[in-house]
């Protein structure tokens, strides 16, 4: 079979698998967040937490709960790293240094999983499974709760209540993330991923050398790393490491795990706003863009531009034999479109425009289909913007899902849309202005060096976590700057989205009339695709011309 035919079949199977679980999982999640009943485990949890599961919160209390929870999470994760050498299963590794511990704590709590460190040489098993992996569950759950709160903003009216964060959090973990992780983790072990507590196994090779093989509870972390769109590798090579991703089948399964919740949440959205077509429209926008980026990335990699790439005969630097170009490009598009940031190949070594496609895909704001929850709320904010733009064109008060978009809502949307690009562009500019920060660039003397810096801030600002790995990021400047960018770009938008949800929930629904813009039809899908590309394109175009476009054109 030709590479092209195999590559297309692989994409076809992925789409078929997602289509098969779309309705059942989307429907199940809608029931999870609308059910009045608590399970026994949940009732026990609420008793321990001291919360009344029937007491709904205002948007402000919901937001404060998230901030409080994320703050204590950060403190614990920081302390676990700082005290590592005194804890069991540290594998003899020292305490993590302050700047790195701050960066890593911020990174995992903000669902980014940017890693300035090499895990094999930095994090013992306990910090990984009792610290980092716990945040892989919890930061993902936080993302989903915010999306659900925004959906309730549309589906409820004349109320100031959006639900109870502690209930939504617990249900996200107990009913969705954990069951899938248990099954998916064992599937990964069956495919060859390791799951043990060994600190290393020494073997004597057939040529008389010695090699130490790493151990670790990898599968249990790998599964939630993909499912929760986190992306932090158990090992430095991430999903390129054969113990994390041993073959073509595990590779496709991991890609599926990254996409399954963000995709199915559009169904949940449609069901909860009682108009399934609205969910299909949002999914249509996400799928259109994801498909375009997948084929662009594949095309650029197969074409194999670059002097060194041409000399090698194919874009195989930084890629694994078992994946080749198609399965690597598919993974790359998915990881950059879901804010996961796991990698099965070295993005820094991609062709100029192939790597540029990954960079631009993150710049869209992680909405294609985006991180768990974050992708949906990000796209819904853009949908509100699209409706507003359409309203301006015809001179009507814009409405989305029967809620009026007034000055207050547009202020919140504007702030949301400005937050991340400001952080990315100002951060990149500051870094390029500082000699110490420029010194971290690995591929010097070409536009590729600037791409490394721009990629780092784009990844942090969109809570992605993948990297042009040549950049030496474990230095005080990047640990501090990227840590702050990750926190601000995660939690400012969350507060704005919750405020928006609160604002919509208070409104009385306006009746649909012939002047209402239908937001479930192809016209609106096209418009929203246009808004996503134009808003981000105009914002980042100057920066892209200095990096990947200068190198690739």
């Amino acid at each position, binding site marked *: 079979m030709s590479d092209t035919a195999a590559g297309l079949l*692989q994409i076809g199977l992925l789409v078929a698998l997602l289509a098969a679980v779309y309705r059942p999982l989307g429907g199940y999640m809608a029931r999870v967040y609308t059910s009045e009943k608590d399970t026994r485990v949940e009732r026990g949890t609420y008793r321990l937490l001291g919360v009344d599961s029937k007491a709904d919160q205002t948007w402000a209390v919901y937001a404060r709960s998230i901030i409080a929870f994320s703050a204590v999470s950060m403190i614990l994760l920081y302390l676990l790293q700082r005290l590592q050498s005194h804890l069991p299963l540290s594998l003899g590794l020292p305490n993590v240094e302050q700047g790195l511990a701050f960066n890593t704590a911020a990174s995992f709590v903000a669902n980014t999983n940017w890693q300035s460190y090499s895990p094999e040489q930095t994090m013992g098993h306990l910090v990984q*499974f009792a610290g980092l992996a716990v945040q892989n569950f919890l930061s993902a759950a936080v993302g989903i709760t915010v999306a659900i709160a925004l959906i309730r903003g549309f589906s409820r009216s004349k109320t100031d209540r959006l639900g109870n964060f502690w209930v939504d959090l617990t249900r996200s973990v107990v009913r969705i993330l954990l069951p899938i992780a248990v099954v998916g983790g064992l599937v990964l072990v069956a495919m060859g991923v390791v799951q043990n507590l060994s600190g290393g196994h020494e073997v*004597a090779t057939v*040529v008389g050398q010695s090699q130490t093989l790493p151990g670790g509870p990898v599968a249990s972390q790998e599964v939630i790393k993909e499912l929760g769109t986190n992306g932090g590798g158990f090992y430095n*090579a991430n999903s390129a490491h054969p113990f994390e991703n041993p073959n073509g089948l595990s590779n496709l399964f991991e890609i599926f795990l990254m996409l399954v919740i963000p995709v199915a949440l559009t169904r949940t959205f449609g069901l909860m706003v009682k108009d399934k077509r609205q969910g299909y429209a949002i999914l249509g926008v996400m799928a259109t863009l994801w498909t375009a980026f997948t084929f662009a990335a594949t095309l650029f990699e197969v074409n194999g531009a670059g002097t060194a790439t041409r*000399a090698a005969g*194919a874009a195989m630097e930084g890629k694994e034999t078992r994946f080749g170009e198609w399965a690597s490009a598919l993974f790359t598009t998915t990881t950059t479109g879901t804010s996961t940031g796991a990698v099965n190949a070295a993005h820094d070594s991609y062709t100029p425009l192939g790597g540029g496609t990954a960079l631009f895909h993150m710049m869209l704001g992680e909405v294609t289909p985006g991180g768990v929850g974050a992708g949906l709320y990000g796209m819904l904010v853009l949908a509100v913007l699209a409706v507003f733009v359409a309203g301006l064109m015809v001179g009507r008060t814009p409405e989305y899902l029967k809620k009026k978009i007034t000055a207050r809502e547009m202020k919140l949307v504007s702030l949301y849309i400005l937050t991340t690009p400001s952080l990315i562009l100002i951060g990149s500019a500051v870094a390029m202005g500082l000699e110490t920060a420029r010194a971290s660039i690995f591929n010097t003397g070409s536009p590729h060096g600037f791409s490394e810096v721009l990629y780092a801030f784009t990844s942090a600002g969109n809570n992605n976590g993948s990297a042009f790995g040549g950049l030496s990021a474990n230095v005080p400047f990047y640990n501090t700057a990227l840590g702050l960018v990750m926190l601000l770009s995660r939690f400012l938008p969350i507060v704005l989205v919750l405020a928006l949800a609160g604002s919509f929930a208070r409104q009385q629904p306006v009746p649909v009339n012939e002047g209402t813009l239908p937001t479930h039809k192809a016209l609106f899908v096209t418009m929203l695709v246009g808004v996503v590309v134009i808003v981000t394109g105009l914002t980042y175009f100057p920066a892209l011309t200095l990096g990947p476009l200068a190198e690739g054109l």
Partner: protein
Amino acid sequence: MASRFPATFRQLGVATRALAVFTIGLGVIYPLAMTGAAQALFNDNANGSIVQVHGKDVASDLIGQAYTKQAVKDGKPEVDADGAPVMVADPLWFQTRPSAVDYDAMGSAASQYGPNNADLLAAVQERRKAVADLEGVDPSQVPPDAVTASGSGLDPQISPAYAALQVSRVARERGLEVTMVKQLVKDNTQGRTFGFLGEPRVNVVTLNDDLAALK
């Protein structure tokens, strides 16, 4: 305003208790239960798919190794400027791909060279010449995976084209029939799963272990 402070503290208290509960459930019970289940159900996989030759652990069939020996110069083992041994390909064995970490399994990494990096270009050209010399073929016949470092630095596999290139040299060095070596390569070749997932590849680690087991 005054009433807000107790409310915030209340959320902090709930947050702390929630984190404790979830850390025990997701950070202790979940990983340990998964480890137990994986060890019971898929013991070999869970422990790294270890390969044995003559009853001794020699490799994981998922993790690549270097099949090298110390170079000899003027009749003496060669060392570099820092006194570290200079390693060259051992012609008795099939060769894995170049690695950014010399197959140190405790430090997986890629080279991170950009596509236009001059150092990478030089390395590719140098590797192409070295492989062509070792195999006694024209440089244009050397496939891409033979001159590029993998994403993990631990890739155990090579393309069928690169394996085919090495067959006659390994047979000659070992005094084996070419057909026999070809058969071993075939035994260690994997196609795409279901015909379309992943790439066709030859596992050098298990192939070399098969060669070692012959003796």
